[in-house]
């Protein structure tokens, strides 16, 4: 069966420091990968998605970037964190979206980021 893992689970970082959150998927090949952010009291906002190695689409211009160095690895980064980057970050995966295969997006455990 497929599993998704992301780490670290919690992170407290000072303003201006770098960030690296990592996500890996097991049990599937060529997944679509996603990074979402959930700010306090809000729903989820799609930040980045990727349909293949090196293919990253950004949905929201911001201080963050994403990379996909391997098929099942997705990394969220920042060179200099801002206070507004605080939140709960969720990595997710899906199969190739196909109306006939009933695809669904599955989420990792999430990472709490507090920028101080």
């Amino acid at each position, binding site marked *: 069966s497929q599993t998704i893992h992301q780490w670290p689970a919690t992170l407290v970082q000072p303003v201006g420091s770098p960030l690296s959150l990592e996500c890996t998927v097991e049990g599937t090949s060529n997944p679509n990968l996603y990074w979402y952010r959930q700010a306090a009291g809000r729903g989820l906002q*799609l930040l980045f998605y990727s349909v293949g190695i090196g293919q990253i689409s950004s949905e929201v211009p911001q201080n963050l970037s994403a990379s996909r160095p391997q098929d099942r690895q997705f990394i969220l980064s920042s060179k200099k964190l801002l206070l507004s980057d605080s939140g*709960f970050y*969720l990595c*997710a995966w899906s199969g190739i979206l196909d109306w006939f295969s009933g695809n*669904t*997006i599955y989420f990792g455990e*999430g990472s709490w980021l507090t920028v101080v």
Partner: protein
Amino acid sequence: AQTVTQSQPEMSVQEAETVTLSCTYDTSENNYYLFWYKQPPSRQMILVIRQEAYKQQNATENRFSVNFQKAAKSFSLKISDSQLGDTAMYFCAFMKPPYSGGGADGLTFGKGTHLIIQP
């Protein structure tokens, strides 16, 4: 762009009661998927139920069922025989047709309903 609206920020019911969470959405697409996700205090996002827009039959999953009204763009979740473990944030989400352009192939979420099951 699609929008998803959940008009009930918080609901509270007694254990064993039936509760209905509301969701409306706005889209110009004819085919799409709708989802309900549950987020317990652990914060992990768990899929509850999925509905394909081209199917007239409402989806059911054990105690969870939906009332999908395509013309009204309404997608409510009914939880029967509610249990303490159902306490969580519930998010309604929309997925547009894959590769149809106009944004990411992913989910658009509502802001959630905090459901509290009282003992």
